[in-house]
């Protein structure tokens, strides 16, 4: 017996047998220089698929940068940049079936949601402080962004359990950060999903940081993936900036889940290239050398190198795509900013699914939040007078 528990002495020298042994595998198929391991890449992504995902990456990277500028110029509220994590989002979501499987996100996997049909301007609306960005359109299978850290994973386990009970061949993908695995909700969701053998894929975007707290301070485990072992579910660590690896691991996990094999855990090793949010300045706590090193592993750069080496990409194509990205993004911004201002009475419309209780109707009709406002006759307002 080795490791921290090993002590000398009579008790510790007693003979013992191994009760359980486990290992965590790491998968990388496309390295940071754009070299592909052809054996591992077999039956993963076709050239066309890589091209299309790469273009999405470029477009959404551009959207991310524009979103940052919108915040800086006062046109949007606090925004968490996705920069650097696009491959983890796209590779996982691409493995899932659009319109069939279900995404339960936190807030740093925009591209996954877009791939499954969420109109991109919804995300901008959300961060502009407009709940209409959370009114997920019919047919798009995802929940709204979750701001309380970790709480959404339980919803994912629940949705997956329901699929199993209803014998529907559908799966759930849920996203969360390295920091979120410190919350109790994470552990309860993992245990639930596993004991119920629910078709749920837990995707940890290990971007190395939780605001200013590095992963080594957040947890004392060598990998995040090994947390899966405790719950008896398969866990794997993949290069999160490698579309092939992320896709392959997700595909395996989803196939297993769909075949009744229960949940899986995927740790995508990636990096938050930007600040935590627009309210943060990561320069204060991150070593520029570390950031520099990760810039070298940027998914956009490595997939471009790969496509170029295969003769599928060149400078003209890049220029054309950049131009297209600009147009698309400006349309997205227009769509978000063009929406009419919400009606003040909207605040009453989504508190209850059933009929609005009488006292809330009175509040809505008088638009008063003081107790006299509860009775329209006392404030001298006609019913509905202040509605518009």
């Amino acid at each position, binding site marked *: 017996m080795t490791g921290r528990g090993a002590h000398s002495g009579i008790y510790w020298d007693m003979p013992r047998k191994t009760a359980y042994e486990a290992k965590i595998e790491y998968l990388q198929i496309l390295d940071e220089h754009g070299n592909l391991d052809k054996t591992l890449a077999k039956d993963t992504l076709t050239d066309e698929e890589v091209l299309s995902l790469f273009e999405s990456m470029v477009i959404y990277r551009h959207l991310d940068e524009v979103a940052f500028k919108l915040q800086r110029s006062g046109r949007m*509220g606090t925004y968490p940049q996705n920069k650097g994590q696009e491959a983890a989002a796209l590779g996982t979501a691409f493995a899932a079936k659009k319109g069939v499987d279900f995404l339960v996100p936190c807030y740093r996997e925009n591209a996954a949601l877009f791939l499954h049909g969420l109109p991109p301007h919804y995300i901008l609306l959300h961060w502009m*402080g*407009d*709940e209409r960005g959370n009114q997920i359109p019919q047919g798009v299978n995802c929940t709204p962004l979750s*701001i*309380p*850290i*970790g*709480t959404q994973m339980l919803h994912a386990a629940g949705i997956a359990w329901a699929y199993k009970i209803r014998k529907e061949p559908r799966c759930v993908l849920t996203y969360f950060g390295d*920091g*979120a695995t*410190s*919350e*109790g*909700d994470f552990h309860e969701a993992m245990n639930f999903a596993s004991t119920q053998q629910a078709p749920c894929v837990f995707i940890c975007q290990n971007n190395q940081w*939780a*605001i*200013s*707290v590095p992963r080594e*301070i*957040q*947890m004392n485990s060598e990998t995040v993936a090994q947390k899966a072992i405790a719950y008896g579910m398969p866990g794997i660590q993949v290069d999160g900036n490698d579309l092939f690896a992320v896709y392959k691991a997700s595909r395996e996990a989803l196939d297993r889940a769909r075949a009744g094999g229960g949940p899986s855990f995927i740790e995508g090793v990636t990096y938050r290239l930007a600040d935590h949010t627009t309210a943060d300045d990561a320069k*204060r*706590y991150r070593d520029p050398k570390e950031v520099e090193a990760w810039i070298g592993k940027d998914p956009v750069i490595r997939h471009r190198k790969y496509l170029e080496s295969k003769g599928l990409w060149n400078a003209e194509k890049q220029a054309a795509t950049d131009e297209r990205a600009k147009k698309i993004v400006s349309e997205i911004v227009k769509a978000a900013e063009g929406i009419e*201002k*919400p009606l*003040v009475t*909207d*605040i*009453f419309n*989504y*508190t209850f699914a059933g009929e609005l209780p009488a*006292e*809330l109707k009175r*509040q809505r009709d008088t*638009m*008063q*939040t*003081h*107790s*006299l406002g509860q009775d329209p006759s*006392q*404030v001298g307002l006609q019913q509905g007078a202040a509605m518009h």
Partner: protein
Amino acid sequence: MTTTMPDVALPPVDFSYVPAREGDRVIQFREALREAMSEEMRRDQRMFLIGEEVAEYNGAYKVSQGMLDEFGPKRIIDSPISENGFAGLGIAAAMYGLRPIIEFMSWSFSLVAADQILNNAPKMLYMSGGQWGCPIVFRGNDGAGGQLGSTHSWCVEGLFSNVPGVKIAIPSNPYDAKGLLKTALRDPDPVFFLESERMLGDKAHVPAEEYYIPFGLAHRHREGSDCTLVSFGRPVHFCLDAATELAGEGIECDVLDMRTIRPLDIDSIIASVQKTGRVVVVDQSWPFASVASEVMAQICERCFDWLDHQPVRVNTADVPTPYSKVLEAAYLPNKGRIIEAVKKTLGR
């Protein structure tokens, strides 16, 4: 027999009034909080601060700026994102003689630690027959107004003040923040200390001399005999703005800042209402079973006959906090609503 460690002998708290007079230093609300913690930590080696981002990052809102440098990583501790974890560990530390300060980045996130802070901290003394006290301070940002959306904008005072065994302080200005936090840090019982992100940059005169503000003692910001305005925390400022405007129309308000909700200085409220005969309670949380409704109930119980008009409360609308700027403004109490409410009580 008591199981807790013997108390370290600290000089007794002197509650004699040190006014926030002109000429004193002008500091920010966040600096006032920091000074309170640092002064008490210098004196009391048992005290430590734990929370998300409190150490290396100097606090998510820069309240603990520089404290890691002064007190070191054993006393200024960055926690994993485990609110339930550090609340519970803190409670155990308090039970065994330490004096933890637990920072929630936002009180909204205390909800994932609800069992620890509501079901453990305030009941420990009771359930152990007086053996385990729980001298712990939970502090953090409370309240809406920053466009943070419904899950991030909690005003926990309405919900949490229902629980016996906790004290709740909710200062409206830097001077009170420092004096109340120092008192909280000397208190033998659990204290919930509610700060407002909206006010952390507010500046005010704060004396260089040490001072403590006792719990359960309201502060009268303004004297008047026409109507009593009762509030706490950030809306006190809306009340003062309303009172200034009303004074221009010849209506004089008595503006009471409760400073602590538990204990509640109901005697000062009653005395004021007996003078004015009218009262408007302004509370930034939801109306149903709120601190405002409690204040109104106690007024009705204790001085019903003195009232010239029914008590009125100004709360938020009874819906989740809106995210949109326009909607959030429509939801919150504001100067206009307070003025309207005061005028109603005067029949104008």
